[in-house]
């Protein structure tokens, strides 16, 4: 292990925002905060073999000591204790850990925590409004779009991302958009219906 010796990167909220400029209008509840203020500069100040990363999670700034090898998933679940984001495989093969980074669905298990600095991270906890369910979650309840529910937070985040890019997806677009999230219980049919209902709830 070593401390983070590198120079601050040029990665910033601004460049990320421009990248997602084409994604269309969408709201994301609690995640709608200003651009991330964290930069790699905050990674200085590491102690005892750890880096300190500053992460913007659900609009809150977290400063967490991590090892370079720690994934965003490990940090969310083990350090931030946000266990709504599930671990299914740890290898980018199931989607249970899907979160939004700058409004784009990604696998938290395939993202190094240090790489998530500067991005706005939204987890399933972040689409709640207080104790109220978000619209996608509500649609999942109404359509019974899950069985065991373990993949559900990841599915919900994939839908959030899909509807931001495409507020009124066709059924084929829903299938494609949801194809990065396994559901071993096989609730896909109801998930498709929930995506349609969520699109309606969001006014798509």
């Amino acid at each position, binding site marked *: 292990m070593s401390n983070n010796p590198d120079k601050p990167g040029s990665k910033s909220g601004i460049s990320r925002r421009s990248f997602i400029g084409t994604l269309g209008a969408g709201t994301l509840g609690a995640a709608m905060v200003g651009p991330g203020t964290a930069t790699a500069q905050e990674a200085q100040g590491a102690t005892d073999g750890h880096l300190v990363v500053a992460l913007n999670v659900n609009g809150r700034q977290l400063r967490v000591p991590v090892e370079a090898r720690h994934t965003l998933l490990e940090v969310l679940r083990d350090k931030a204790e946000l266990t709504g984001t*599930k671990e299914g495989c740890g290898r980018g*093969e199931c989607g249970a850990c899907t979160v939004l980074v700058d409004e784009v669905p990604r696998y938290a298990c395939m993202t190094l925590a240090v790489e998530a600095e500067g991005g706005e991270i939204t987890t399933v*906890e972040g689409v709640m409004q207080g104790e109220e369910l978000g619209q996608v979650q509500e649609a999942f309840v109404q359509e019974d779009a899950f069985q065991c529910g373990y993949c559900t937070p990841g599915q919900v985040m994939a839908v959030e991302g899909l509807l931001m890019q495409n507020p009124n997806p066709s059924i084929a677009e829903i299938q494609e958009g949801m194809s990065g999230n396994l559901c071993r219980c096989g609730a896909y049919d109801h998930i498709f219906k929930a995506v349609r209902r969520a699109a309606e709830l969001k006014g798509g």
Partner: protein
Amino acid sequence: MKYYLDWPAPDAGHPPPQDQEIQPWGETRVVGKPIPRVDAYERVSGTALYTLDMTLPDMLHAAIVRCPHAHARVVSVDTSRAAAMPGVRAVITASTPGAAIPWYGPTSSLFDERCRYAGEEVAAVAAETWHQAVEAARAVDVEYEVLPFVQDDEVALTPEAPKVHDSGNVLNQLTNERGDVETGFAEADVVLEQTYHTPCELHTPMETYVSIARWDGNRVTVWDSNQGVFGIQAGLARALQLPLTSVRVICRYMGGGFGSKLGLSKYTVIAALLARMTARPVKAALTREESFLCVGNRPANTIWLKAGVKQDGTITALQGRFLGSAGAYPAGATSTFLVQALYRCANVKVEDNRVYTNAGPGRPFRAPGDPCCAWALEQMVDDLAEQIGMDPVDFRQQNIATVLQTNNTPYTSIGLSDCLSDGASAFGWDEARARSRGDGHIRRGVGMAAGMWRYPGDPRATVFVKLFSDGSVNLNMGASDLGTGTKTTMAMVVSEELGVALDRIQIEHADTGTTQPAPSSGGSQTLLVMAPAIRAAAIEVKDQILELASAELERPVEDLMLRDGKVMAVNEPDGGTEFSGLRGLRGRQVLVGVGRRHPHPEGKIALPFAAQFAEVEVNTLTGEVRVLRLVAAHDSGRMLNQLTYENQVFGGMTMGIGLGLTEERILDSRQTGKVVNANWHDYKIPTAKDVPVDNTCVPIDPNDTECNTTGAKGLGEPAHIPTAAAIANAVYHATGARVTDAPITRGRMLAALAAERGE
């Protein structure tokens, strides 16, 4: 030896007869409606705490050392390097005191010095962090004597094959026979024979396998992802030689099991032992990769069938030879049941051969063996129908058995005929069957298959229902909710009887410390065992409150009913007294109903039936197969919740698509004996793009008043049994090419098409 596969098990429990007279439901107000789950909020919000999500104060993490060889003797285990690593608090091996625990019956032990498959447990480590535990496990130095191994089921039966166990490689060989098949074949106008193969499949629930053990003096509490806390409790108590009351097992939310989490697993015992050694809580969670090796599978089957049919549609003989291996240790591997039972036939002979091989051990997997049997039988039945020029649906209609032919027991109800006809009608079978299959390289076809499920359930269950003075209710049941919606349907039963809103019903479940013994959630038995017990308990509470209210309101009990949390006169639904307004209830504080499941009906058996229909598109140039739509008609008795029922049916079919088209464990049998696709990339379970968007569920309710007091039969397993075979039949209809080996990969489809063209 009796395994889950050998259901119906003769040693199923015998609950005492009930003295309570419970009438079948008439029209229901809650039961049968499409009601979202009572724990939906927790599951969609991410607040539901699964075992894998849990952290206890001061908790250690375990990692397990696994044998990398398909067959090896452990010569020595040196833990000194591992024990000295940062954060390591305990290392356990076969020689650790207390670790000599028998496993797989008498055939093996927790850390067997002879490892019979790649992935078998050799030692384990507990450390402060999971990373430290994994690193320490890698530093345990094990010297192996590598032994020759066998993985081919046929080869395992030969005398020169390496022996998996000293006793040899035959687990068991069973023959079931009625009539005389040779006579039957002689009577037939057409005799067909064919060999089919189904792959070894892996359960791979979304939540992997995990236990957290914490000792409190000489008692241990285990939070565990499983399908039945009482089974795990019994196994663990036996392993640790503790009384049942010293072992508490809890499973609040769990992320799927499909049969693989029914029994006690080594990692659970390892967690308990490491926790005792360190006097700290220990979490043992398997990685996704480990979950492909050591926690069960559906064994591959090779099934040879021979069948005779008369021109008039009579099936004169059915003969089968089944070969399967549940890997290195005793477990079920095959099921001949459907051949014996689904269609009327006087002459049947099935031979069942189960062998040991040097591969990961099998475990029950959603209708153990039956989807494999259906894959063979239902393709054969279609071929018979074609040979005599009959429609596949008509042919099956003509051959429905009216009793369970294995022991001539009548059914309490049999809705198979309605499944076939209503399913065909919902599918538009006749029109679809007659439609053009296309003349380009894209062909369309339709196919169907039938099925039934063989287990009537272990009828022992005891539940408590408590009505408190404010009118809220506690439902106390031992059953787990794997995601089938058990909690929801059971609360609906209470709501139906007590007229209490679902959000006023709190459920305590799946905790051996606080709930009553219940059957494991497997075998499609949970609903049909638990719901009658819960109904009995609720009715006991209902009787008490009606009696109280009758005295207090000075009206006869017959004039009163319970609705909307009130007691009201039958003819005055607008009035009524809140439960909380009853002085008698306040005085008593709580009314308790104890419900027991009644025994199964004497001399009859209650089993569910199914028919499923598929339309597929096959690209004859590339071998691509797309399932365009599915229709499932199920006689699972009364439907208790439309949403969860339909969800269960579609889920079973999705898993059937996996068997039919994508899933297959692959062993490096000729070199190392390792699983080469122990991950979700190379082991392919269906995605959102592999399922049709056009799915229809046709519930068939035969109004069974004999099966139990709710009229419900099992659903989880029958929903999965016919799907793959229906797809295979549709593929054949589309192309004229029979794919006898599942799954129908692009490669197998292309090979079958080439064979069909005579190449």
